[in-house]
Structure formats: structure tokens, C-alpha cells
């Protein structure tokens, strides 16, 4: 009889939540945003999504085979990287660009570090930044949305943030005719990356993740809060030059970044205070780069930079151990 018995150290029960369940929930939460993107940008968005996702899965398989490790694509983490990468690319990305991004994300962003859980930087953002620096033309060619059934063709245009930056660079003033209204931006009717266009769809997905308790409020709140505060400050100082906080909120990748990229568990701090600090850092850097930097959009860089700071944040924001006095122990 003892042959069938299991013995182990306590505890002997488990919540049943597993890594792959968490990952799959994240995938589901991203589906509305994918749907909106396909609605506004048509088949080109769909193909970018497919190429990125399949590319990531294939790269993961090849890497794990090469290194003689068990293949773990079923856990869904590579698929998430693929979807997030696609959401961070312009809908007009050529297929080779998307594929290259997928390979970079998984091979350099993740597998060289030992795969899931080991990568210090968000793989999708690593790929996006590599592409942005290597292929600036393709990565900044944006299309105006052409909703399915509208009969419109995709026309090259500038993102709202890009239009603002160009105007400020040239004239030092806010442009008078920014494309689209705030409502358009919120729903996703604006040019931009596949996934950053519809704040509404992203918020829907995020709500699901909150419900599943996969997201905690700390990072998104701190991130978005800081952006609103800081951009609001500049707006109050010179409304003719700096756009208002709502503009910052609904254009560009802030919502996508704050809810999906900056909350990637692997590359962010573990303690509550650490998460808040991380979010504030992301917000600061985002606004700085958006308003004063060379790039119109700073969310990706901000998150990557804070990823780099994560080990240090973890180190200096350890929770106070129960029963220890006052300040926590810092080495």
C-alpha cells in the first residue's frame, strides 16, 4: 500500500492557480484590444498579430530544442509576448519586421536568460526598442484607421503625439489641428500602434484581470497618476505649448503600457512599495521623454529603464518583517 502513498512537506493543499492559467487569462484579456485593432486597421493588423504570435511560439520552440530543455509553449507566456509585441507595432509593419521582432523578443529578450521568469527586461519591449532604433522609418509609419466596411483605404499619417512633437519642434507651440477628438482617441479611432489605439478595449481587458486578481492596482495607478500630475503641471504652466493630461492619457501607449507592459510580473518589483515606486518612475520618465526627449513616445523606454532598476528597487523596498522595529533592514 505504501507504494501509492505520497509524502511531502506541508502544506498539502494548493490554490489550484497555475502559471499557465494566469498566462491564459492575460491572453483572453488582450482579445478585445486585438479585436478593436482588426476592426480599425483590417487585415494588416491581423497579419501582424498572427506573425508576431506564431513567430514568438516558433522561436521559443527552436530555442528550447537547441538548449535541450523541455518545450513549454503551452504555458502561454510566449504567446503573450507575441501579442504584446504586435500591439506595440504599427499596423503597416512589413512581415519581416514583425518576424524579426518576434525572434529578438524571445531569443534575446527571454531565452538567453534562461526562459520564463529569468528575463530582467520585458521581452516585447526589448524587441520594440531594438526595432525602433534599427528601423525608424518602418516603425514610425502610421496609418489612419479605416474601420471595416467603411471602404476607406489605409492612409499614412502621424500619431497625435507625433503631430504634437513635430509642431513643438518646429514652432514651439501646440498644433492647432490635432487629428481626431478625445472620444476618438478613447475608442481607438486614431493612428498609432495596433494595441495602443483603443483605451476602452484595453480597460475592459484590464478589468477582467483585476477581477481574476492577476493585476494589482499599484503599478497602473502610480504610473498613470504620475503622468497625469506631471503633465498637468506642465499644462498649467504653458497650455499653449503642452497638451492636457487627458491627451496624454488616451493617446499613445500609456494605457497599454501601464496595464499590460509595466505590470509584467517577471520584470517588476515584488513588494507593494516597490511597485508604487516603479509606477512613479515609469510615469516620470514617460512624461520627461514625451515632452523633452527626441522620441514622441516614451512609455517603452520608461518601462525598460525601470525594469533595469527593478532589482535595486526590490532591494531597497523590502517589506518590514513582522515583529521588527521601525525601519526595515537595508543592507
Amino acid at each position, binding site marked *: *500500500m*505504501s507504494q*501509492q*502513498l*505520497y*509524502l*511531502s*512537506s*506541508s*502544506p*498539502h*493543499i*494548493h*490554490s*489550484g*492557480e*497555475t*502559471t499557465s*492559467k*494566469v498566462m491564459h487569462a492575460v491572453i483572453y484579456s488582450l482579445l478585445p484590444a486585438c479585436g478593436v485593432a482588426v476592426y480599425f486597421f483590417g487585415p494588416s493588423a491581423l497579419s501582424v498579430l498572427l506573425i508576431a504570435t506564431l513567430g514568438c511560439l516558433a522561436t521559443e520552440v527552436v530555442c528550447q530544442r537547441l538548449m535541450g530543455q523541455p518545450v*513549454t509553449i503551452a*504555458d502561454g*507566456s510566449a504567446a503573450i509576448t507575441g501579442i504584446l509585441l504586435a500591439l506595440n507595432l504599427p499596423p503597416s509593419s512589413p512581415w519581416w519586421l514583425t518576424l524579426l521582432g518576434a525572434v529578438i523578443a524571445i531569443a534575446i529578450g527571454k531565452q538567453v536568460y*534562461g*526562459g*520564463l*521568469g*529569468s528575463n530582467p527586461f520585458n521581452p516585447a519591449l526589448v524587441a520594440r526598442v531594438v526595432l525602433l532604433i534599427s528601423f525608424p522609418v518602418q516603425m514610425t509609419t502610421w496609418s489612419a484607421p479605416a474601420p471595416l466596411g467603411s471602404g476607406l483605404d489605409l492612409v499614412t499619417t502621424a500619431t497625435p503625439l507625433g503631430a504634437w512633437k513635430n509642431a513643438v519642434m518646429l514652432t514651439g507651440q501646440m498644433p492647432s489641428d490635432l487629428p481626431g477628438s478625445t472620444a476618438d482617441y478613447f475608442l481607438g479611432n486614431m493612428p498609432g500602434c495596433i494595441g495602443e489605439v483603443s483605451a476602452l478595449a484595453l480597460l475592459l481587458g484590464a478589468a477582467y484581470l483585476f477581477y481574476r486578481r492577476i493585476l*494589482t492596482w499599484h503599478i497602473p495607478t502610480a504610473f498613470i497618476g504620475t503622468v497625469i500630475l506631471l503633465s498637468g503641471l506642465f499644462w498649467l504652466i504653458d497650455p499653449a505649448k503642452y497638451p492636457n493630461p487627458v491627451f496624454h492619457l488616451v493617446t499613445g501607449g500609456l494605457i497599454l503600457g501601464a496595464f499590460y507592459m509595466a505590470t509584467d*510580473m*517577471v*520584470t*517588476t518589483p*515584488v*513588494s*507593494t512599495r516597490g*511597485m508604487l515606486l516603479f509606477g512613479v518612475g515609469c510615469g516620470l520618465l514617460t512624461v520627461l521623454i514625451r515632452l523633452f526627449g527626441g522620441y514622441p513616445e516614451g512609455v517603452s523606454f520608461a518601462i525598460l529603464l525601470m525594469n533595469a532598476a527593478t532589482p535595486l528597487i*526590490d532591494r531597497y523596498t*523590502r*517589506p*518590514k*518583517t*513582522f*515583529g*521588527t*522595529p521601525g525601519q526595515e*533592514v537595508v*543592507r
Partner: protein
Amino acid sequence: MKLKTFTGGIHPPDNKQWSSHKAIEDCPLPAEFVVPLAQHIGAPSVACVEVGQRVARGQEIGSAKGFVSVPMHAPTSGEVIAVENRPHPWGTSLPAVVIRPDGEDRWSTELQPADPSELTPDEIVERVRLAGVVGMGGAAFPAHVKMSPPPEKQIHTLIFNGIECEPYLTADHRMMLEEPERILQGVALLQYVLGAERVVIGIEANKPDAIALLKKHCLETPVEVMSLEVKYPQGAEKQLIAAVTGLEVPSGGLPMDIGVAVHNVSTAAAITDAVLHGRPLIERVCTVTGPAIREPKNLRIRIGTPLSHLVEVCGGLIEAPGKIILGGPMMGFTQLGFDVPATRGTSGLLLLRTEDVALHAESPCIRCARCVQACPIKLLPTTIAAYARRDLLAETAEYCVMDCIECGSCSYVCPATIPLVQAIRYGKAAILAKKRSSQI
């Protein structure tokens, strides 16, 4: 009204419906008792009977060795048939006294009842010590030690633990429902001995019947019955103190350092028996439960009853179990078989089927921080475990591994199913071993 609680913790399904409605039954005597000489924290007792000797129920069969130690007593009258190493719930073979009952169940004549109003506090503590009373929540720490704090540590708050936060277990719950007088007498005795100003009985809100009953009994007394939020590990000593008083036991310290003492409600009942009737701790209530047992029950068992007998009394097995657990599912110990005996700390026997055993393969940590949120001590379990597994003992110690209470919350919530608690235990053992070797 928001109920009091501590920070951190988890909400596992409590699964108490199997046995919470079953009244306590007296377990019939088994064919043979195996009374281990080590059943408590501290020095094991030493056998003081010989093979062939006749013993009476309640007679001392193992004498205490040192202050943090308690004597052992015969669970029934009968003959000592062996004093030898027997399988022990801790996983190895340890010295035990084996007794064959004669069926008479005759009490020892040496036991003297007493009137507590004529006893000094020291005499009460001595009676508790002689009766071998230990903490009955599971850790089995000798009760008399907790009852005699050094004079400079005045106890101002006395807390009774009726939390029973371990899933499945219902023994304390039934005790509170069926024997409130016995418990409250013990409460009064302890209050008298320790001179505490405030006395609180903490019960989780999922036992409304017990709360109502004890409140009724305590109407005329200074004892306060407090309903606490349902959360694991509310019943852990430090967490209970934090929930009730808001005080934190200092790291590495004892509750008495902040003027608090915590006793289990069942311990209070045992103290009543010891002081009033002179009866030693030879029986306790134990929940036999789980999906693999035919008839879950709350049994009043004698210490030393083999587990196989408990299974038999509960109608046998539905199927061969996948895991045999002594204690609750969060902190209990798995057993190799049914030949080990129940001890003074055995609050439950839980039998899981093979399909109930969590078999997820371990995957890499994704730093989701659930363990950090769940840890009631506010440690970073994943970091500690990672360091411990790489034998980086200095870092392990620096992340306060020694403060871990091994409640299992982190392992329970870990989506990567990393054996965090086991890694932490491993780290603790390695650090202690290193300390010991450097002292020599």
C-alpha cells in the same frame, strides 16, 4: 462592523462541513497503545516503567527531563509489553512505551482532586506540569512553561485560541460547543495564575454557534469573546496576538515579551482536568476526516491510539489514501502508514485520495508576488527560497528566514507550485547546523 484580523494571509476552502456537525464520540480502546516518549517540544521524557509491569490509567510511565519537558501517562490500565523504538509521527522510529489494555480502564489511585480556591498559583502550575499538559493546537509546547513567565514579564493580556484556522479540522469547534464549562474553568484558572487584566477568547467568524454559546456563558465574567475575520493563519500565535491586540511579537521573541500569553481552548480544558481532578493529559479530541474516510468523525481519543484503530472506528477507508496527514492540510505531517500512534498534538487525521493530492510540476518563479502578499510575516518567500536552494546562507539569513512560521500560505498560492516552505525549512536547518558547528 469590520472584524479584526492581521495583514497577509489566505482564504483556502475550509472543508469543515465533513465533520463540524458531528458530536464528539468516545473512541473505544484499541488492542494496543503505543505512547511515544517524545510528544512535545523540549526534552523527551524517560521511561519509568518496565516491561511486564502493570499500570493504571493516568499513572506516570515517562518522567520529565528538565524544565521544558513533561511526564507521560498511561492512557488506560494494562500491562507494559514493550519499551522500544516504534514508528513516530515525526517520520522516524523513536522510543515508546507499548501498553496492552486489560479492559478494566481503572484510574490510578494516586490522582487527587483539589479545590482550586485553596491552591496558590505555583501549586496550580505544578499540578499542570505533573499532568503533562502541553499546547494542544499542534506545536505541543509544555503549558507549565507558558504559565510561569519570569517575574519581570507581567502578562496583561491572556488570549485563548479558538480559531482553528486549519481547513478540515473541527475538534476545537466541537469542544467549544459541547464543553464550554470545562474550557471556561481553565480560562479562569489561567487568569488567576497569570494575573492578566484582559482575557479574550478569539474565534473565527465561521463558527457563529460557538461564538454565541461562549458569549452567553461569559456574560457575567470579565472574559471577552471576540469574533475574528476568517483568514488563514489567524490561529498562528503571533498573528492571533496581532489581530486581537494590534501588538507585534518582536522578531525572535516570545509573546510574554510584550505581556501576552496565548493558550488553545482545548489546553484550557486539559488544565481544568489537571487542576480540579488531578487527571493527566491522556486524551484529546481529534478530527478524523477527509475524502478517503467513510465516516468523518470528531473522536475523543486516548493518547497512543494507533491511527489504524481510528480509521476502523470511522468506518474504514473508501479507497486507498493518496496522502495520510496528521494535523491539518496546511501544517500537518504526512505519514508512511497507519501504524503510528496519535500523540498529544494530534488535532486531526486527514485522509486525502490520490486525486486530491496536488501534483503540479514545479515551474520557474514568475515573480508574481502572491507569496509576498500572502506572507503573514511580510517576508519575501520567493527570494528566500531561491537563496536557500543555492545554499547562499548569508543572504538567506539576511532576508529573515528565521522569522518564518512555516504556515504554508506562500506555497498554497504559488502558481509555479514551488515548494517554498520546504526550501525555507531547508535553509533554516542549514543555518542552524552551521551555527551549531561554529559554536563547537
